[in-house]
């Protein structure tokens, strides 16, 4: 990256380190932090939306819908999340290919599962066999995001389900007394008021989500864990201009510190949001705030 880095063998000390830390591979490593942030930025709202849908379904008066919602919440919570990650990445991929197969090659006669092979007709491959590399990467990342959203959607559904039940019954009765339809009272009374009850659970969930991001590595995405293992491993002079011993420990220490800082900052921000939302609420927290101000 710098002109002085042209011949690494002449470098030593700090100069060597600066050049080492700015190699092309290290730049990819730094960029992969962006991947993690991108994952969070997409997953958090998607999971929240899925959680909302799940909570509404679980509350539904239509029995099958309610079972579906409750089943979704219970199943995802009862099974290790990492098993879900490993399962969904293949299952979603095969599901998509199977649907495309039905759509594109309706008169394909061979069975799709042949022993330990999963064969769909060539135009049904997702992504297509001749697609450029970046399409494959985006596809893999999208599958990962979707998997995260399914798993964390169930946790969010659980939190929102509880929060909806926590809104004082009197509020809903008042809405009914005013002649609001169930739909109106849901939209105008329940949803605006549930957030203060949901926030502790949701902030917890955000922390859990942050701490789940390294699992991207297991989904085959080139994330920070992948690069930390790659870059930290022993490098011999034959293959690199910057030989070094096994530094994986230091790379993972760096990741550890990164996550600690990230969760700490989130904690501080969420505390402020909570203080803001509690303002004027008829809860213990709101009361304490009022007394402190007086």
């Amino acid at each position, binding site marked *: 990256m710098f002109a002085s880095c042209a011949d690494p063998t002449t470098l030593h000390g700090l100069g060597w380190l600066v050049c080492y830390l700015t190699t092309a591979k290290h730049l990819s490593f730094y960029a992969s932090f962006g991947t993690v942030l991108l994952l969070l930025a997409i997953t958090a709202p998607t999971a929240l939306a899925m959680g909302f849908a799940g909570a509404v379904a679980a509350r539904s008066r239509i029995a099958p819908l309610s079972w579906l919602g409750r089943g979704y919440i219970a*199943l995802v*919570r*009862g*099974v*290790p*999340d*990492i*098993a879900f990650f*490993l*399962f969904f990445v*293949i*299952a979603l991929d*095969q599901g998509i290919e199977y649907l495309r197969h039905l759509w594109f090659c309706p008169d394909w006669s061979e069975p799709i*599962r042949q*022993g*330990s*092979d*999963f064969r769909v007709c060539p135009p049904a491959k997702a992504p297509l066999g001749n697609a450029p590399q970046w399409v494959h990467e985006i596809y893999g990342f999208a599958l990962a995001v979707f998997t995260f959203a399914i798993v964390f959607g169930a*946790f969010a559904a*659980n*939190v929102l389900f*509880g929060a909806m039940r926590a809104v004082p019954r009197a509020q809903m009765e008042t809405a009914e007394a005013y002649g609001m339809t169930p739909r109106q009272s849901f939209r105008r009374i329940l949803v605006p008021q549930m957030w203060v009850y949901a926030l502790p*659970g949701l902030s*917890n*969930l955000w922390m*859990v989500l*942050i*701490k*789940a*991001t*390294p*699992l991207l*590595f*297991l989904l085959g995405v080139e994330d920070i*864990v992948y690069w*930390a*293992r790659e870059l*930290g491993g022993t490098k011999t002079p034959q293959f690199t201009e910057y030989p070094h011993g*096994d530094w*994986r*420990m230091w790379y*993972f*220490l760096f*990741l*550890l510190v990164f*996550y*600690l800082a990230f*969760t*700490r900052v989130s904690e501080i921000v969420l505390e402020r949001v909570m203080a803001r939302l509690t303002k004027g609420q008829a809860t213990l927290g709101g009361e304490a705030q009022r007394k402190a101000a007086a």
Partner: protein
Amino acid sequence: MSCYETLMDYGLRSIGIGERLLPRGDFTLCQQVVLIGSGMIWNIYFGALSLVTGFFLATALALAKAGRNPWLSKPANAFIFVFRGSPLFIQFFFAYFLFLSLKQSYPFFTPLTSATWGALLVLFLNTAAYSAEIFHGALLSVPKGDIEAAEAYGFSPRTRFRRIVWPTMLRLAWPAYTNEAIFLFHATTLVFFSGFPATAQKGDALYYANYFADKTFNPFIPYPILAGYFILLTLVVIGLFGAVNRHLNRHLPTAPQRRRAGMSPGFLR
């Protein structure tokens, strides 16, 4: 090959007893159920041992954190912050590579580079930190009146803690602690995916489920089997913890039972 033979061959495969080679092709349902079940031995080993040992460290940490001595509360706080603030997955990786480099200079650390001891140590510290936070919260909610009553009866500080504070703390913390136990068992599936090697293919349930999914390219059989085992394990944990909960609350007149494996997902890593 009958299913009984499969059970004999692979029932204890995960701890190295039985057939040396894993099945290679023509996987039967029986093989998958047996081998994944065999892997559960590891999940139960990691979960149960770290839970039991972590319980004691957690109590000590909670007391240190709540105490007035900064020489104790500061380190306890820092410990809890480090283990609760970072992903368990990264902790495993870091610990493994740390033990690996320590091994170079001190052979004493050699056992810790295996999952059996190294991963157990990490899980022990991790669950101690999460449980300590739960216990600390419960410790702060012990009713003041209870302690005053104990003082009035002339209990020594030691007896007061053993007879009044500690049981009440446990009683208050139990629902949340049940949750922590469930998620700890779930977290044990991370071990063999985070650096720690599965020597001679001796792995946990997820390791074998993943093996079958890779070989058959069909995730719809091994993962539901795994899910079944874990739901069973979760039910057992809830049953055991429920029994303890009833014991802890036995003096209360039909206390309203809080929903156990309750509403908060907070203890997942």
